[in-house]
C-alpha cells in the first residue's frame, strides 16, 4: 500500500519487471500450498485482503485453496484507511470497502494479504482494524513482495518474493483486475521524490 503512492510517476522507461504473470500465478499457488501445510488443512482459515490489490490477491489465493482443499474458503477485505498512522498528515483519503465473511473472524485463523510489505505500517494498521472486528485465533500475513526496510517489528509468514531494494527504488504491483495486466515493476524514484512516505 504505502509503496505505491509515488510509483505512478516513477514508472518511466527505467522500470523493469521482476515478476511476470506466470511468476505471480506460480508464487500464489505456492503460498496457497504453504497455508494448507501450516494450517493443517486450512479448515478455519479466513483470507482478508488489504485494499486495493491485496483484495484481488486474497481472492486468487482463495481460489487456489479451493482447488487444493475442495472447500470454499471465506475471503473478504479489510480497509485500514482510518487506522493509518499518517491519517493526519495527508488530506482525507477515500475509504475502501471492509467486507467480513458471514461467519466472522472470531476464533479463526486470519491470513492478511497485501501486495507489498515495506515499512510494516500498513500491517500494523490492519492489526488495529482487526481488533475492532473480532478476536481471531491467530493472524498471519501473506505478501506478494517483501521489499525490506521495516520500521516496525513485523514480518510476513508467506512471502511471494523477497526483493532487496534501496530506498531510492519503487516497487509497483500491477494486477489484471485493476491495471489490466499482472506484473511487478521495479523502478527508480525521480530525484525530487527522494523523501520516503
Amino acid at each position, binding site marked *: 500500500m504505502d509503496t505505491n503512492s509515488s510509483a505512478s510517476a516513477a514508472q518511466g522507461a527505467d522500470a523493469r519487471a521482476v515478476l511476470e504473470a506466470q511468476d505471480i500465478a506460480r508464487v500464489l499457488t505456492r503460498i496457497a500450498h504453504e497455508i494448507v501445510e501450516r494450517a493443517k488443512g486450512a479448515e478455519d482459515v479466513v483470507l482478508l485482503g488489504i485494499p486495493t490489490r491485496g483484495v484481488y490477491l486474497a481472492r486468487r489465493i482463495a481460489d487456489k485453496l479451493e482447488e487444493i482443499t475442495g472447500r470454499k474458503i471465506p475471503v473478504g477485505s479489510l480497509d485500514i484507511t*482510518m487506522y493509518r498512522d499518517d491519517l493526519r498528515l*495527508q488530506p482525507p483519503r477515500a475509504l475502501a470497502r471492509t467486507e467480513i465473511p458471514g461467519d466472522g473472524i472470531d476464533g479463526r485463523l486470519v491470513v492478511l494479504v497485501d501486495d507489498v510489505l515495506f515499512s510494516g505500517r500498513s500491517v500494523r494498521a490492519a492489526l488495529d482494524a482487526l481488533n*475492532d*472486528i473480532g478476536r481471531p485465533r491467530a493472524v498471519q500475513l501473506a505478501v506478494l513482495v517483501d521489499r525490506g526496510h521495516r520500521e516496525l517489528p513485523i514480518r510476513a509468514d508467506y512471502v511471494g518474493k523477497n526483493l532487496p531494494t534501496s530506498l531510492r527504488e519503487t516497487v509497483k504491483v500491477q494486477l489484471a483486475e485493476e491495471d489490466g495486466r499482472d506484473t511487478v515493476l521495479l523502478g527508480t524514484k525521480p530525484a525530487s521524490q527522494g523523501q520516503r512516505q
Partner: protein
Amino acid sequence: MKRHLISAADLTRDDAVHILDTAEEMARVGDRTVKKLPALRGRTVCNLFFEDSTRTRISFEAAEKRLSADVINFAAKGSSVSKGESLKDTAQTLAAMGVDAVVIRHSASGAPYRLATSGWIDAPVINAGDGTHQHPTQALLDAFTMRRRLIGPDAGLGQDLTGKHVTLVGDVLHSRVARSNVDLLHTLGAHVTLVAPPTLLPVGVETWPCEVSYDLDSALPKADAVMMLRVQRERMNAAFFPTEREYSRRYGLDGERMAKMPDHAIVMHPGPMVRGMEITAEVADSERCTVTEQVANGVFTRMAVLYLLLGGNANEPTPSQ
C-alpha cells in the same frame, strides 16, 4: 471540498457523490461489534445549538462518538448566551479551548457563515440548520436515503440521482430542508417539483432550479420520492391557510394519494412528523415511509462529513495515489 459545510449549494456533484460513497462505508460500521472508528481520536468537536433540536443534535453526537471524537455539547438555554453573550464571544471562548470543529444550529439565517468567515475561530464549521436558510447534512442524508432505496446500496456507489423525480410537499417558505434539498438534488441531477399552497412559497422561488405546482395529485404519478415537509407553526406569524383540515385535505398525504404513486416510490419526511396534518398514520407506518431509515442514515452521512472535513490535513496536497 471546501473547508466548511455551510450550504448544500457549496458542494459540487463530485463532492456530494464522494460524501455519499463515504457514508456507504460508514454504514457498514453499524453492523460490527465495535461500532467505533478511530478517525477523529483526540479531536474535539463542539455542538453549538442555539435552537432546540433533538434528532439533529443526537445524530451529530452519535456520529462524532462513533468516530472517536471528544464531544462538547453546548445548548444556548442555561448557558451564558441567555445572560447576553454574543456569538463572537462564544466563538472566541471555544477557540481558546482548542475546539477542532464546530457544529452549529442557530435560529438566525447566516449565523454559521458568519462564524466560518469572521476569523473568530479557526476551525471547520458545519451548519446543522440556520433559520430558514440551509440544513446541508439533512439534504445529504435524504439524497443518501434516495440513492439507497431507488438505486441500491452497492449499485449506487459512484452514482448520482440523474433522472429521478423528487417532489417536496408543504411548508417550503419556512423550510431550510427544502432549500438544501433543492440545491443538492439539482446538483445530483434529479428533477425537483415543489408542491405547496401559494402562501407557503417564498418570494423568488421561480429562480430556483425546480418546478413549482399547487396541485399535489398531478405531481404524484411521476414521483420516485415524495418528501413531506412539516408545517412549521412555530415560525408562522400570519394566517397562511384557512384551516388545518383544509391544508391536510389538499396537501396531506393519505393512503389514497399514496396509491397514486408508482410502486417503487418512497415517502420521506425529515421529522418530526405531525400525524394527521401533512401525513396520515397509515402512510407514516407503511413500508414505503423511510422516516426511521433517514434517522439511521443521518448518522452515517454525518460521520462521512466529519471524516472528510476533519479526518486528514486539508493543507497537504492530495497524494498521487
